[in-house]
């Protein structure tokens, strides 16, 4: 089967089938989905940030993604959805001046460094052969 045929079949299927997900599936497919979800919910609860401010960002990202490459199967929908969610969280935090963008990259670098330090100390204790 050629790649082209695969794509045609997928397209046909996508046009005909609404993706389904049984009720018992996990609520969050990745641990970070849960954290990103709860982070903005908590901030809205505990600050003056209106939910609509975040929602506007989310809507914009979902619309852009829908135009580019809308996902069809449930897992891909969830993965794309939370990618949009995270971008919306980040941009909301910056736009509302809770955080400045350079702080994020600096914090990421600190976390990377601390993980590297821990690994380095573990490897010193248990050197690889």
């Amino acid at each position: 089967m050629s790649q082209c045929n695969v794509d045609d079949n997928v397209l046909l299927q996508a046009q005909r089938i609404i993706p389904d997900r049984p009720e018992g599936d996990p609520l969050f497919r990745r641990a970070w989905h849960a954290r990103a979800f709860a982070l903005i919910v908590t901030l809205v609860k505990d600050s003056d940030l209106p939910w609509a401010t975040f929602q506007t960002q989310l809507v914009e990202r979902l619309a852009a993604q829908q135009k580019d490459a809308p996902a069809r199967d449930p897992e891909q929908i969830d993965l794309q959805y939370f990618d949009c969610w995270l971008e919306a969280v980040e941009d909301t935090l910056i736009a509302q001046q809770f955080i400045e963008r350079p702080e994020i990259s600096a914090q990421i670098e600190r976390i990377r460094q601390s993980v590297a330090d821990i690994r380095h100390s573990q490897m010193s204790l248990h050197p690889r052969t």
Partner: protein
Amino acid sequence: MQDNLSDDHHHDPIEEGAALRVRALEELLIAKGLVKAEAIDAVVEYYEKETGPRNGAQVVARAWCDPDFKAWLLKDGTAAIHSMGFKGYQGEHMRVVENTNDTHNIIVCTLCSCYPWPVLGLPPAWYKGAAYRARVVREPRAVLAEFGLDLPASQKVRVWDSTAEIRFMVLPQRPPNTGNLSQAELADLVTRDSMIGTAVL
């Protein structure tokens, strides 16, 4: 700075993309005193363990058994649902729409994924997907058919678009031959999709 990791080393997820970014955002907000880690934990736990469609099922079963409650639910969904203790976030303004022999209701959020969290939990993937959001408004009967639901032509289909201001929930019709069941037994019959409107009982 490159550390001397061997080729068979598997990166911890925390070092990669999205997981790392979320952790960085969380740590920054905590450091600034804007949120507490325990509060974030509590939100995750609430949505994973305490809310979900079983809450909505209890509301539906009570409405089937208690005409006064049903009237209240349809008139002021927010207050009636709150009275049962289902008060979580994104449940401030809820409206319940009743399925009848004449009208079948379906909910959607065309813009993103607004959903009555306290009574239905978090939405399923397909509810968030572009296909459902775009099509259910345009061709609701075709979408319902894909869920295995063929409604009689005489039954009107109404689509309700949830927003940040108001979230809808469907009160499904009570299944036939359930007159002898208790309220708790009736609640067991109620499915999530029946409260979205993509299924009947």
